[in-house]
């Protein structure tokens, strides 16, 4: 965990109102695991006041499938056009975020060359069951952000990955180019404008027996639908949660979630929890 300055290397609006940003931060890139997050300051003034947590979307690190070769000096500014849009270079991590309020609006205005204050990597991250080989990843909306880093690492470990991604309409669906090519990518849209019609949880039943392990990230109703499926604990289903955060470090107790193990801090005890521990 470090606190420091990260450089915006590239920024692009990859879907309507969804931004991908490559951040140069060798120290975080070196340490980050899929499922962890970065706590980013959006502005130097005090409104918005708090940092915003964003998942590590992809990690640029040797030995990680998401990383492109190449070493950049700290002063490096690359134009968006010259960047491999989807893959952060070594020493970089990327974040993928929706512009929804004043924090993400300010972030979306950052330009290549800007410096942002970051703390990270934070939280526990996903963990692989050593016996698992077939992985089912279930993403609702921007919940796909941390699952791509997970897919990268799973591919690196030669696991078999199916990623179910759901969104309201096709405008919320990442192109396949945004993902490691080795995985199976199943798209569901509520209006049927892309892939299967329906919510993503509807498609889970079809894959659940095949899967050795399940990883989930998405809006709370989706998580609740998955809890309701009562997936066998042997699948070691894990879910990355979100809660409003102040510190991101475990001190403020703002991000508590109630679990079967008592109150837990999403920022420090999570954000990844066992699906079976949630209530």
């Amino acid at each position, binding site marked *: *965990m*470090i*606190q420091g300055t990260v450089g915006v290397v590239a920024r692009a609006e990859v879907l309507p109102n969804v931004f991908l940003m490559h951040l140069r931060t060798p120290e975080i890139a070196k340490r980050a695991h899929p499922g962890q997050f970065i706590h980013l*300051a959006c502005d130097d003034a*005090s*409104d*918005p*006041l*708090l*940092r915003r947590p964003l998942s590590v979307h992809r990690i640029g690190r040797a030995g990680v499938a998401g990383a492109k070769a190449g070493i950049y000096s700290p002063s490096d500014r690359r134009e968006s056009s010259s960047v491999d849009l989807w893959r952060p270079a070594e020493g970089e991590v990327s974040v993928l975020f929706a512009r929804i309020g004043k924090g993400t609006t300010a972030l979306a205005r950052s330009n290549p060359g800007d410096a942002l*204050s970051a*703390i990270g990597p934070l939280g526990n991250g996903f963990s692989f069951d050593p016996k698992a080989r077939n992985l089912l990843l279930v993403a609702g909306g921007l919940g796909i952000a941390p699952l791509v880093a997970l897919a990268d690492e799973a591919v690196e470990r030669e696991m078999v990955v199916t990623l179910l991604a759901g969104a309201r309409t096709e405008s919320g669906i990442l192109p396949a180019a945004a993902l490691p090519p080795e995985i199976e990518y199943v798209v569901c849209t509520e209006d049927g404008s892309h892939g299967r019609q329906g919510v993503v949880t509807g498609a889970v039943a079809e894959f659940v027996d095949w899967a050795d392990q399940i990883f989930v990230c998405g809006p709370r109703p989706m998580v609740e639908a998955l809890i309701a499926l009562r997936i066998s604990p042997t699948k070691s289903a894990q879910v990355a949660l979100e*809660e*409003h*955060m*102040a*510190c*991101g*470090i*475990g*001190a*403020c*107790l*703002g*991000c*508590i*979630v109630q679990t079967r193990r*008592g*109150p837990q801090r999403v920022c*420090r005890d999570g954000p990844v929890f066992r699906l079976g521990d949630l209530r």
Partner: protein
Amino acid sequence: MTVSTLVSLAPKHDGGLMLKNPVMTASGTFGYGTEYAKLVALERLGAIVCKGTTLRPREGNPQPRIAETASGMLNTIGLQNIGVTALVREKAPIWAKWDVPVIVNIAGETVDEYGKIAETLEGVPGVAGLEVNISCPNVAAGRIPFGVDCDAAAAVVTAVRDSSSLPIIVKLTPNVTHIVEIAEAVVAAGADAVSLINTLLGMAIDVRAKRPYLSTLTGGLSGPAIKPIALRMVYEVAKAIDAPVIGIGGICTAEDAIEFLMAGATAVQVGTASFVNPNAAIEIIGGIDSFLREQGMKDIGEIIGVAQMGRRT
């Protein structure tokens, strides 16, 4: 040239609760200190005040617990904490090894509870002092905070004083008409110092859901938004009482801290700013030092209370 930033928080107490510099972290905003150990050079802090501690462990309030506001935040953590027994067992031994004084913030729902918590902390290595949070609801008086009433506030202080030989700081709530009266009452009852302000009572409403945003309807406002109010109260209290005042409220930068010191605070606490910048307190310590050097001053005492002197013309 060396600059002295040593301050005493309890000049009338044996030992005096000396801090190597006047910058502390505020209760509830720095956990037990341990959470920040990897990011912050804790031994450089003047002191750490730990999360509000109750007699028994508390689970706190339901979600949502925090809401962001313009230059501020509302919280309703609800004093979630491990309880004083676990604190003595699990945290104090760690603190005893640190080179920074740790002050325990305590909170009760009855006068008696305050006394019991203080008793439990008596003689525990690693505990340098008590900060008595009197913003908590007095269950005996129908959940009115102790801190809005001179007699109730004094009763709490007396109970703690009777149960403890530690230096006692009393933390005042700003949600009152005359904060000076409360400050005077707690000093008369034996407080070594007062700290102010705790959070201002506030609310946010979720217009889509058509109801208050926080689970408990209201919450405590903190952050830069409240700094002007805190500074005014510190100025008023420092002028009136003959005991150290610890300034708290929206302090983010060295300049903010110096404003409080000039208003008459002997020390300051950094709260919400630590969430935004875990090293805020450390940077403030450095900034105060630079300011003193720049001004050719040799001792922090040279700025404490200077703005009390006179009106601007």
